[in-house]
């Protein structure tokens, strides 16, 4: 995973805030927010490297079509970060 120019949260923080782990690092997330959105909000914009050229990938289509954003959540592999809603204490691991 690599850093990015810190994006801005659109709305002020409300309730239902919690943390999730990403490769051992803790980042904030909100109820109803996807794992991918929480990662992007934390400045993480790439979290996978491709098989052949080892190129960085993160979100692309954002609606579950392209499968670029795959992550492992709590040991379950190949989940689309753009679709999986974050839950408290989720552990996300990237490759």
């Amino acid at each position, binding site marked *: 995973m690599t850093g990015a120019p810190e994006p801005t949260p659109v709305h002020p923080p409300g309730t239902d805030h919690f943390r999730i782990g990403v490769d051992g690092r803790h980042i904030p997330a909100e109820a*109803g927010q996807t794992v991918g959105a929480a990662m992007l909000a934390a400045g993480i914009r790439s979290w996978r490297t491709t098989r052949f050229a080892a190129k960085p990938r993160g979100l692309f*289509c954002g609606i579950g079509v*392209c499968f670029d954003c795959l992550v492992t959540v709590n040991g379950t592999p190949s989940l689309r970060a753009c679709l999986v809603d974050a839950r408290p204490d989720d552990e996300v691991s990237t490759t």
Partner: protein
Amino acid sequence: MIHDLVVVGAGPAGLTAAVTAAGFGLRVAVLDAGSRAGGQYHRHRAGRPPAWPPLARLHTVEHLAEHRVWAVERVADGFAVHAVAGEREGTPVTVTGRRLLLATGAYDRQLPFPGWDLPGVLTAGGAQALIKGNGVAPGRRAVVAGTGPFLLPVAVALADAGVEVSAVLEASRPTPRAAALAPHSPARVVEAAGYAVALARRRIPYRTGRAVIAAHGDHTGLTSVTVARLDADWRPRPGTADELDCDTLAVGYGFTPQLELAEQLGCATTPDGFVAVDARQATDIPGLSAAGESTGIGGVHLAAAEGESAGYAIAGRTPPRALLRRRAALTRFAAGLRALYPVRPGWLSWSDPDTLVCRCEEVPRGRIEDAARLGADDVRSVKLLTRAGMGWCQGRMCAEATACVLSDVLDRPIAAPPPTRPIGVPIRLGDLAQGAS
């Protein structure tokens, strides 16, 4: 229990159809992949539903959220719809209905260019989904590029989320003929004017006849894009290239309909590749209807009008004449609008042999051209020779572009094949096995 109607897709078309039919007493189930009803247009954050009347009537139907439908089949008394429930757990579910309505929508069409695989390059729909559904802005400084009226609300949403939008680059030059559309749908023209005002107020330049022809970055992702003026065929005009710094590019060249489920049932399609329906949204298969973007790209108002017409017809009622007139006017407007934003073949000159066409299997354009020279003369043969389209997305991102590259080499029109897949969306084999046991 068998439902009177099963709807796939809880967007503007599907949910409008569902609550309309439920209003006439039908038992309706709506399966949708999203965790909240609304589809792409009415996508919203948890606990903040927009004021869209069908959402307020969601309790009148059985809404099955996070249900990915992977197969539909005809059974004795109607249709069986097979889904996997839950993004994580993947529980197999089968829902049956006497009638079936497919409202599966569409996703952004992409044209490959150097660097389009860099993190920070997002589809226009994806950028909007991040903001609408998650309250997260994708970056600090963005360029919006592509073709079609959808670029305007995306740029406004980015700006309102605090992103500095350097420019909206519309590859077409739609203005001269746009006025001719006004009589068909004055409300839509007012809407377009509203976006023009919104862009001006936010000081976002709207430039036509221009495109992002390359994206540049480092190991962290996108850092800048090359912008050029285009000729009428979308070839860059020499000497017009310019570089813009940005960390986000939101890009989309129109939309591709999601046809997998319609293809599984073998229903007729139009010459331009959409589900063929009549004025009451019926397909050529008895009991099967379709509505929304999968029957033709027309936007939220047309999708809702189609959904409402379908709801009446499925309940055995005659849609009100005013509704059918509105639907017809919106259909004409949509056709006229689509004609203003055609994708022109010169986009192929933006890429080089190393530019990826298939993102999943990392197949560059040069390998597809080699396959064509080896004798591959359709998209399927290219897939077998190069693996383009064989990855996770099943060719959704690259099949059209692959067909265009092939056409270019062979110098004759090659169409992307219809998406015939026994499994409509990628699901884990374990989930299927669980269903069989």
